[in-house]
């Protein structure tokens, strides 16, 4: 399986929070040969079931990576220009001059504009720009815009993936489709190996607006274990706190949001295949799907695996393909090692 091509296609597909259908269909195609059945959750998350070889009823592990991306939404139409609200948490500073696609009655390419610099007293603005300063220009007459666009239409970045040197890719929505690709790589790895547990691969919706897909699928699927997957900050100048090198493997979360025994078991799996696995401590909320999954129903032991990424929440989020492949390999190794008794060893502390 070609992880790079798979990720490139997903990055360039459009699926902001609540509007994930085009990405879901791409993922469904990629998972089709790797899973036994599909389900789609009530909020739109895609679930692929890969059955284990153990005797029924089999325990289940959920692998959860979100497929939605940060976007914008039309707030108001002003003389043919579109005023916007944010859909998720994109960095407003990165929007000016960006090509965008507006999903009106048809897909309309445009650009994010600002008034000319001399018409903006920038020196008087400690925070500039803010969303209220931006507008979208479709280059169309006012009447045509009124006919084609409505308040509430969604907008995505219209950018292509840039292949950098080595195995690095820069593009939009690598957060978190790089991790969807890691789940695909795991399913691919499991296709030639025996595992006794059922695997529930989940491409969740609406993470960027509150992890709603993960929360509802954790309840719906009620797995015995869960691994949430998201991106973390890669090394780059000017960063405070923990950052991780691109290309040096996945990073595992550590802290109250994450089950200590599951964390230890993943480390043990990494040791078995001599893979580096760095720890990232979280004081409380990891800001990922792991947060709601952990307290679903009567509690789900949850781990967090992360792929390092530069320029988070931009159109040039940069990842190393090797990190994705390694994350997939680590999960496959862990799942192969799961036996019928594993859950009995899952104690918070001993």
């Amino acid at each position, binding site marked *: 399986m070609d992880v790079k091509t798979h990720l490139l296609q997903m990055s360039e597909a459009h699926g902001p929070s609540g509007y994930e259908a085009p990405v879901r269909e791409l993922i469904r195609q990629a998972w089709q040969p790797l899973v036994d059945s599909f389900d789609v959750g009530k909020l739109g998350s895609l679930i692929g079931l890969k059955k284990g070889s153990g005797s029924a009823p089999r325990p289940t592990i959920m692998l959860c990576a979100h497929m939605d991306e940060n976007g914008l939404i039309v707030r108001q139409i002003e003389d043919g220009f579109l005023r916007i609200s944010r859909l998720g948490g994109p*960095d407003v500073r990165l929007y000016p001059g*960006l090509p965008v696609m507006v999903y009106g009655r048809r897909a309309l390419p445009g*650009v994010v*504009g600002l008034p000319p610099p001399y018409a903006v007293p920038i020196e008087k603005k400690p925070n500039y720009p*803010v969303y209220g300063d931006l507008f979208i220009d479709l280059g169309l007459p006012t009447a045509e815009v009124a006919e084609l666009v409505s308040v509430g239409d969604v907008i995505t970045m219209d950018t292509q993936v840039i292949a950098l040197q080595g195995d690095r890719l820069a593009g939009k929505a690598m957060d978190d489709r790089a991790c969807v690709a890691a789940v695909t790589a795991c399913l691919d790895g499991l296709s030639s190996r025996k595992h006794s547990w059922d695997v529930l691969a989940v491409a969740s919706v609406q993470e960027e607006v509150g992890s709603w897909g993960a929360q509802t699928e954790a309840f719906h699927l009620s797995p015995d274990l869960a691994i949430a997957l998201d991106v973390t900050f890669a090394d780059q100048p*000017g960063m405070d*706190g923990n950052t991780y090198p691109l290309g040096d493997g996945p990073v595992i979360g550590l802290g109250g949001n994450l089950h200590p025994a599951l964390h230890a078991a993943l480390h043990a799996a990494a040791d078995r295949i001599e893979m580096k696995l760095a720890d990232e401590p979280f004081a409380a909320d990891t800001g990922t799907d792991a947060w709601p999954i952990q307290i679903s129903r009567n509690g789900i032991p949850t781990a967090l695996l992360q792929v390092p990424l*530069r320029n988070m*929440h931009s159109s040039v989020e940069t990842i190393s393909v090797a990190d994705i492949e390694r994350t997939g390999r680590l999960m496959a190794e862990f799942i192969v090692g799961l036996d019928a008794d594993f859950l009995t060893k899952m104690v918070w502390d001993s």
Partner: protein
Amino acid sequence: MTDTLANNQLEMLRLLSQAVGVSGAEGDVRKLIRETIKANLSDLSVDTMGNLSAVLKGTGGSVMRVLVSAHMDEIGFMVASINDNGLINIVDVGVHDNRYTPTQPLLVGKDKTPGVFIWKPIHQSIEQQTIIESEDMLIDVGASDKGGVKAKPGEYVAFASRFTELSPTVVRGKAFDSRAACIALIGLLSGDPFPHDLHGVFTTQALIGGRGAAIAAYRAEPQAAFSLTGFAANDLPGDPSLSDYAPIIRLGGGPVLSALDGRTVGNRRLLEHVRSVAKAKGIPIQLHASNDIQQPEGSRLKQIAAGIPTLMIGVPIRYMGSPNSLMNLTDLQSLIDLMRESLAALTPDVLETHNA
């Protein structure tokens, strides 16, 4: 006259817009233009500044020499140094509007290696939310160390923008101020001759001081010059309470004649001539009189030798500092039509009429 640009001109605009030609390294653009015009024009030359000059011989009806310039260069960056971690420090070439810079794809160095800027993510810098300056940005080409970067200090970095048609008349892309002007000049040089010789010059380094035009004009010794370029359209939403808010230049409003650009006063006789031609031919025009930005080439041309009557004329462009600016193709076609008619009607007495 036609309303829209011919298909081959649109394709050439696409090629030129996407070509790399940062001020001081315009070779790719020059080559493209040269290949296009060499079949029809025998008298092509490249001077010591890299300007490409062509002469369209007159029919003999006039002994005037008229220069029309179109600049080939675009803003970009230069590699200043390479860090041990493989990240590249840059300096600006030309004047940038950094509001538009951080997420633009880049082509780095002679090999045009794809690159992106890196900066501190919003999660850690939202409280200092402000414009990111070039000196705070580094370029990532995917190298892990200094040895992994092919580009050397002194090589150029250009924006990589996809030319996109938003509608049948509006296009999105970069470098329209120079490359649309080049399309217009190619159009003038490719048509029927004028009564006078037309010295067409595709100039270099316009955006770092009108440097190329300086020697091109000195060499051509014209009696009049037209500098083709782009002007910032400001028909945009804004704060009406600001004095500079009132829209002056509109996208789709027709070619722009510059009465004043910074400290460059457009030659009044040329301006009145073009204006009366526009009126007679029914071509819409807009007048630009602004202190906000100065484009150096027009200023340079007028002060060459003992002085050359010069008029800057161009297309309106929205978001001119952005690598994804917008231009209206009808404006460009009108610019070509207006220039053709104005040159055809240009006689020595136009310059001698003291009506201004």
